[in-house]
């Protein structure tokens, strides 16, 4: 019996080692692809430039494919160097500090939006679970909600937030409206995967709960919700990136200052005087997105490892 105990312990140890190895392998692959990406960018640019130098009229570059001049494709060295340059004349605060501050602002919106979206999405999933009719009747509207362009509803939400929420016990600020916009994008994958997850409970387990004369609520809490956890994490990964995108687009179309959206808008309007600033900021936004997904993956790993379960891959 102790041997079996030891075997189980050995299995767990083996799984832990395997997980660490997986993480290392993944990081190496990620780094390798980053190098390949940079080399492709630089290589394409070099080829394009050399053709330009010889003044040949290659039909692809500049027509079908992007031009390779420094305005369209600033050299990677310029983009990297730009992080250390101050973007404003009257201050020597480097760009990376601006990006970091804006990222934090946007992350706050996205995090709150993610939380709202998660709660709302899960609530919808639980309601949809109650009957096939509700599920069939409501789902098309959920899908429709996602086809409305965000740029159209963002100003509405920002204006509504600043004019109609005076009754709240705290001051409603614009970044909270942006959080709502982010929530608008995040609730959908959570609701859709949530219903799938809640329905994924093993039929035998459902009958078991029936034989215990368990109430609907007990079945939900003890069986269906725990069974949906792997599905929910798959949705959270999509929702995390959607929250960042929603926050950035919400800032831009809602005219909200302080985040990455405004920074991107500013640098885009002054693109000709410094293209690498925009590139650097976009890279900053991408890093933020990766960070957000990374947080979800870490949480997933902790929760599922405790349950000795495999995650559902995206």
């Amino acid at each position, binding site marked *: 019996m102790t041997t079996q105990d030891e075997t189980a312990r050995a299995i767990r140890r083996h799984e832990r080692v395997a997980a660490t190895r997986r993480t290392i392998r993944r990081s190496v692959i990620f780094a390798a692809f980053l190098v390949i990406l940079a080399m492709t960018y630089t290589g394409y640019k070099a080829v394009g430039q050399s053709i330009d130098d010889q003044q040949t009229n290659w039909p692809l570059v500049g027509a079908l494919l992007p031009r390779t001049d420094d305005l369209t494709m600033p050299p990677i060295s310029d983009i990297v160097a730009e992080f250390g340059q101050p973007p404003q004349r009257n201050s020597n605060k480097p760009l990376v500090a601006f990006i970091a501050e804006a990222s934090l602002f946007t992350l706050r919106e996205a995090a709150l939006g993610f939380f709202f979206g998660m709660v709302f999405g899960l609530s919808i999933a639980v309601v949809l679970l109650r009957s096939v009719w509700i599920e069939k009747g409501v789902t098309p509207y959920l899908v429709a909600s996602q086809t409305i362009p965000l740029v159209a509803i963002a100003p509405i939400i920002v204006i509504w937030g600043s004019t109609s929420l005076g009754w709240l016990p705290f001051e409603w600020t614009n970044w909270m409206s942006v959080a709502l916009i982010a929530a608008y994008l995040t609730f959908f994958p959570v609701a859709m995967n949530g219903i799938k997850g809640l329905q994924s409970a093993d039929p035998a387990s459902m009958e078991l709960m029936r034989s*215990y004369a368990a109430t609907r609520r007990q079945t939900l809490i003890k069986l269906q919700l*725990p069974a949906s956890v792997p599905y929910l994490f798959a949705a959270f990964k999509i929702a995390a990136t959607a929250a960042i995108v929603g926050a950035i687009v919400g800032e831009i179309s809602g005219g909200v200052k302080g985040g990455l959206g405004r920074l991107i808008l500013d640098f885009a309007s002054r693109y000709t005087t410094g293209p690498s600033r925009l590139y650097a900021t976009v890279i900053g936004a991408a890093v933020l997105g990766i960070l957000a997904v990374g947080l979800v993956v870490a949480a997933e790993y902790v929760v599922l490892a405790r349950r000795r379960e495999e995650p559902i891959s995206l």
Partner: protein
Amino acid sequence: MSDAKQSAVAVSGVTKVFNPGKPNEVHALTDIDLSIDEGSFVSLIGPSGCGKSTLLRLIGALTHPTHGSVWVNDKSADEARLDRDYGMAFQTSGLFKWRTITENIELPLQLMGWSKSERKERAAEMLDLVKLSEFGDHYPRELSGGMRQRVAIARALSFRPSLLLMDEPFGALDEMTREHMQTELLDIWEKTGKTVVFVTHSIPEAVFLSQRVIVMSPRPGRIASDISIDLGHRLFETREAPLFFEKVTEVREALRFEEGSA
């Protein structure tokens, strides 16, 4: 009712039709009468499609008869279910993978409002009964198939239901584990005195375990024969005893006759 032994289960005139009136209508059971004594061990056996699982599910109120009635402990099957008279075990153990073994056994107790200390005590007792005391803190996937089935049985018995309904609980196990589990189950049955209704498609399993084997025939499902068996206290040698073989043959003949006439 004036008999010394009360009926734990009384099925009378039960017919079960799935999708009635539709093109895919199936007559699963026709005119079933069955009475099961309290404390007895009864097996339902037959080829697939004979309705043995459906009959078990009717007794357990997981589905309802089209005609006829099912009484359990002098109540309707649904009342018995709400009174938590049933402990169930299926071919898949149905353990919740996010709960430890102890937590799995405690699940029905938790739903029924037992206190934490009562639950803990009872779970320990049950683990002891199925000889898995060392595995309380493990998760289901760390256990073998046979061990998981033992946990499922422990969970089914934890809240002291009067009836144990089992649907091919050992169907997915290898032959050696299976025979071992049969001995364990009989041991538990003798200790607890529960009424057991056991669905299987293994003839030796039905004969070894049961006091009564109900042989069923398919399309439409009905009871073909009702064979009584008394092997006494079963030992390892019982499986090699002439009486055992005699009964195995009897059940096999009952099943073959049905095939021939179908």
